[in-house]
């Protein structure tokens, strides 16, 4: 199990487009990948759940990775966050 904490800098937050891209990135891995904000958790492979969190600029999110390819998933998803969000 791996964990990644991140504060969103994008002024629009995780809106529809990055949510879609995040889901695509996450779906490439078999590990379970969860995103939580203020103790509410969503599955990174489900776009409606991610959007439902309404993550905004300045919010801190926690990503957790659990499974066989968690190392690679951590790499890919954390890079996506740093580069896009």
């Amino acid at each position: 199990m791996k964990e990644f904490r991140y504060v969103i800098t994008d002024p629009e937050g995780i809106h529809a487009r990055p949510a879609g891209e995040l889901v695509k990135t996450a779906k490439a891995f078999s590990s379970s990948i969860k995103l939580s904000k203020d103790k509410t958790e969503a599955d990174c492979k489900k776009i409606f759940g991610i959007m439902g969190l309404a993550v905004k600029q300045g919010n801190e999110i926690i990503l957790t990775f659990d499974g066989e390819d968690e190392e690679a998933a951590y790499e890919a998803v954390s890079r996506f966050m740093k580069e896009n969000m």
Partner: protein
Amino acid sequence: MKVFHGKSVFSGTAIGTIRVYKKGEQQVKRIRIEDTESEIKRYRKATQAAQGQLKKLYEKAVKEVGEANAAIFEIHQVMLEDGDYQDSIENMICTQNVNAEYAVAQTADNFARMFSAMEDEYMRERAADVKDISERLLTVLHGVDETNMHTASPAIIVADDLAPSETVQLNKDMVLSFVTVHGSLNSHTAILARTMGIPALVCAPLPLDETIDGKYAAVDGTNGVIYVDPDKETLERMRKKKEEEKKRAELLLTLKGKENITLDGHKIMLYANIGSMKDLAAVLENDAGGIGLFRSEFIYLENDRFPTEEEQFAIYRFVAQTMAGKRVIIRTLDIGADKSCDYFQLEKEENPAMGLRAIRICLTRPEIFKTQLRALYRASAFGKIAIMYPMITSLEEIRKIKEIAAQVKDELESQGIRYNEPEQGIMIETPAAVMISDLLAEEVDFFSIGTNDLTQYTLAVDRQNMALDEFYDPHHPAVLRMISMVVDHAHKAGIWAGICGELGSDTSLTKEFLAMGVDELSVSPGSILPIRQIVLQTDAGAYRAGLEAGCYRNKDTQ
């Protein structure tokens, strides 16, 4: 004749028959299903078909409106595959023994309600996406044509509102215009219409019934009006307008997409000058390579207080995004002289043209300047923004600007706010700047020559004074020599130089400018294509060689 006013999304004129478009109100009946397994298969097959449609729609949209605007259809594909959405539908079919249509409609309602209940305004609007994908599924399940929007003959489409997918699906040849009762100027649909170049209005309170369906009408996209059953006079006026548009469109067709390149291979950038957001449509329509002068002062002049950073940021970002990667040169606040603004509380001056104006205000009141720079640096992360400073006379001013810009950057950095460093240029509009342009060129990324002020300062002619009209000669050899000198100095330092004053659109000088090696002309949107036409027909080298003695050049360089 009935007249309805709406907000114009895209200018242009359309005359034709109205067709009222009502969404195929899909009657969903609850039917008891025994063989739930094959019903689930039917649902999965429908999802696949819907995915196929979205893929095609995405490809169509990429070609017609660009990747950024097409992204919505990719997102819809991801949404159709959402695990919770799929599970909900399949569960309902299994446990309640219902048909796929009913399960989709119920699930759509539940998910849309979840979004509608959210506090965040942007997310609330996403309920429309849920409905859009669900309606697509229902249409596939019903086994009917993808849309009932196909009309036999070209028509003005009038609807309550249009989903982005409906807008892209419109067969462009069959749509003269579209007018919606709801919708907003910045909705996805409005942006699509703009990029597709269809005259369109939103927020036009038309009754969607037989009183307008099938009626003859004229849409004036420039003024945001639709005339239903127009009278003779109005119709005549609109026909004339349309005729003029057609002529321009024909010219556009032959010139659009062409490079601005002379016969001897000299390339030039043709950009547009804009004074407000309304001009953006014309910029795209006339195939401008970018925006060469965005007069930011309108943001200040339209307000009765200082515009906030957020207000400015929203405007700059919108322009940067609309221009999608093309250069947008935003001139910082140029107030003073003939443009005054009460809340700045500027002292009355004897000689305002030579007074406290433009960059001088910014440097004496850095708090105003900083707000604008912060908004510009932030918006720069959303497109190719360049900043241009007006009324420069010294190196010292550039040094101060750089200092303030560095502070702005540091603050944004430490606050963790996303930004990008824009290109930095200056306006050359004072004789002082011309004379030291070799030194200034070492400090900035580009020059843009403001010929209106440069002429007034060089010839010592007040351009507000009508009595001096005959002495105001922008073709004066002194002015032309200055332009030539600035261009040479720019090139020696490896930067580019353009013209954004009135003189740039003076077609009698276009060849002259090409011969001087001017890199960019920024003109009103309507002037771009006529100038492109001249550029394409000019041999700059031959023109330069053929220049007679006695023109603006020094005799010894002839």
